[in-house]
């Protein structure tokens, strides 16, 4: 299979709900192992204990992405870093995006953005618009979490327009746009519209996050109706991380209404998967700030620090132009993940602090 066939297959995969048609054709016409890995990775039916069968760069990168999704950022970053010098531009950029995502979730925003600018430039130069979309979307997330929602929105708008019509990531981008609007003054209605749309765009399982965002928007804007609409949605507590945010919002609303939020805090804690350690750690701090501490102690279980060098000497740095840089512009701040990060006893400060990690 040559590169062109590979991308054609990938495109079909992306446009079909779960790559069903492609996998069916593979049953009759066996393909290289790495493609099987890629298809398995892209399928929502992949079992949790799945491991790649191939030994190629793509198979190894897939494993690194699995590490990222399991919040094992150190393992993911190690592999991604190795492949940032790959000869093939597509896999190189894919590795860089993975590395930057690990850095983003470890709150190293500046380093993440520096790497992502390279991925943007590679995607642009090689006309891989799917890579460009991913890289600019990831830049948007960095900007959003850095407290620059206006700049983040520009990156998400670009990401959205780069995706083909009907792409399954459209819903996810709409949800990110909604997160950005929800943090911009005077854009509550726009955020509401974007969340409602994101919750109903088929293709990817974004509705939980969209309803979670809608619930938080309801509390932040004082519009209880939005919180009500979010809780009436199809997301059951404990079944989706989005449910964690819905119940967190309910907890804060209860607290503001003078009621006991403990049950909602506990439910929220249980809704966040174990790998969502930042969310759980923050929730404990928040519960303490509200005066209803969850019984778990924070300890030092976070251990999210990553030692990844900046991309200063990377061969593709010279291809970054003002076009890419103009999306980032301002000063980004790296946060140190330690127990002091969420140590405020003031509940409104602590509530605001979640924006550092909640996209």
């Amino acid at each position, binding site marked *: 299979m040559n590169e062109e066939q590979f991308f054609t297959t990938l495109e079909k995969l992306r446009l079909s709900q779960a790559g069903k048609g492609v996998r069916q054709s593979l049953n009759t016409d066996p393909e290289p192992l790495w493609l099987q890995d890629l298809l398995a990775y892209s399928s929502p039916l992949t079992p949790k204990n799945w491991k790649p069968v191939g030994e190629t760069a793509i198979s190894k990168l897939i494993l690194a992405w699995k590490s990222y999704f399991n919040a094992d950022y150190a393992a993911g970053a190690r592999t991604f870093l190795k492949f940032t010098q790959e000869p093939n531009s597509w896999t190189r950029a894919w590795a860089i995006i993975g590395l930057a995502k690990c850095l983003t979730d470890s709150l190293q925003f500046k380093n993440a953005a520096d790497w992502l600018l390279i991925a943007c430039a590679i995607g*642009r130069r090689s006309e891989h618009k799917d890579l460009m979309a991913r890289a600019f979307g990831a830049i948007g997330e960095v900007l959003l979490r850095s407290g620059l929602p*206006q700049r983040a929105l*520009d990156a998400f*708008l670009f990401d*959205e327009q780069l995706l083909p019509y009907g792409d399954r990531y459209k819903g996810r981008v709409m949800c990110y746009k909604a997160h950005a609007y929800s943090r911009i003054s005077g*854009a509550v*209605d*726009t955020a509401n519209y974007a969340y409602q749309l994101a919750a109903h765009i088929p293709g990817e399982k974004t509705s939980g996050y969209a309803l979670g965002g809608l619930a938080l928007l309801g509390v932040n804007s004082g519009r209880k109706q939005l919180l009500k609409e979010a809780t009436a949605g199809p997301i059951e507590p404990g079944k989706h991380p989005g449910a964690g945010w819905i119940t967190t919002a309910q907890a804060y609303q209860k607290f503001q209404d003078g009621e006991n939020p403990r049950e909602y805090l506990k439910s929220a804690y249980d809704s966040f998967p174990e790998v969502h350690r930042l969310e759980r750690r923050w929730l404990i701090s928040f519960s303490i700030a509200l005066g209803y501490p969850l019984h778990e102690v924070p300890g030092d279980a976070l251990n999210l620090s990553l030692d990844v060098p900046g991309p200063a000497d990377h061969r593709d740095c010279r291809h970054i132009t*003002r076009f*890419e840089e103009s999306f980032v512009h301002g000063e980004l701040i790296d946060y140190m993940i330690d127990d002091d990060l969420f140590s405020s006893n003031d509940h409104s400060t602590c509530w605001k602090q979640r924006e550092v990690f909640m996209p």
Partner: protein
Amino acid sequence: MSEESSLKSSFSIPQRLDQPSTEIRNFFLNIFDVPPCTAQLEDEVFWIVRDLQSNSIIGAIAAVFQRYGQSDYQECYTLQVGISSECRGQEIGSSLLKAMEQEARQRECIQVRMRTFQDWNLVLDLIEKHGWLRSKARPSERYNFVEEDWILPLPKRPIQVILVGANPNGRGGEWAKAIERQSQLASLTGVVDCSQESLKHWEAKGLPAAADIDDLLEKLDTKPDAAVLALPHSEYSRAREACFRHKLAMLHEKPLGTSLQELIELKEKLETTPVPLIVGVQRRAHPAYIYLHHIVTEKMNDRLPETVYVRLALGHSPSPSPPKEQDLQGAGKRWRDDPRQARGGGLIDLGYHAIDLVHFILDSPLDVTFCSLWKGDSPAFSDEIDDRAVIVGRCGSAWVRIDVDRFGASKEEYMILNFPNMQIRATRDSVEVDGKEQYSCKKSWIKAEEGVVARLAIAPGEPDSLEFWNYYAVMRVIESAKGLAAKAGFKREDFENE
């Protein structure tokens, strides 16, 4: 008798010759290090100045007269200007230029043209002093430097111009100054403005003034040739109607229309009533951008850059208070803060310039990928006055980002073009390639505005369709950007019908 006048009397007056002589050829060869191009041309004429004592040539101009096809338009093209080094600075060049200009006027040429090179400092000083205008600039193959084209417009008589929208402190005032500076090309014969304050200002200067074009024309003894329109955006349509009615040529400040529909109606009108129309978007006439255009279109052999970034910011501070109704009307008032009059903000104001600049430099229309409009820190609807606009799109293979800001921390204007192995950065006063300055000029708009007035003065009697389509293309981009921006996919109606 002073030493200076004694020197002058030792030179002959310019003498006209129809044929190149060996003496003239040798004179040019002594001055220039390459053979004069006169050798390859026919029908050239010469003006020479001799030293009266030695009878040798000490200054000469070679020129040809060209007619365009079957048309009545003729122009004079200056081929070579040479002054002996020991006689420079003594008005010899001026007398030769005047002799050539006189013949060009007798032949009813519309303009004289000349090409110069940037190291010809004396000639540059001379022609600038004589009212020549820079029309093009490009890298020179000849001296590995910069060559520029100049024109001396020669209207049969100065055109009579009225100014519509005559705020003395606004764009109208700027155009009045440009016309005054170009008195050999145009004269201001009256002004139109809705503000009594403005009318009094111009009447005090002895100019007829009125509140509308029809009233002004009744006051004037002679019908003017053209109108300069510098108005709030919503007012152009009415002013253009009056110009068509009275068959006046138009120098139209941007924007040319505020919607595609308005432009389609204008096009139909131009077809039934063809009058000259020139749009005053000065960047196309500014030397730095003219030079940049030539680098991109000629030196790069039509290879487009990989990316382009354009930044325009005015560096003003926003007004601390929202305008009151009485602040929005009349000259010098805050009409730009009124959506009914301005029909937009940063996008239609600065964005218009930036989009046109991208079109001019890359010679390719911008295909908009996304646009965001901002009012303060919040997204703006497309019918609001946006402070800031971001437009991203493609011109051919080039990715383009435009950032415009009505305010901004400081006044900024630059364009960066990245090619695979080269970066070009242009501002209004320089063009740098990989950080090295290749071209420099004055930042001021004065020459660009004078160039636009000159185009109006020598405009043929009908519209230049390219002028119209250039700005149709800009409006198409603006409408597309607005559609994508409207709170990024949500229209105002979505919220109002809730």
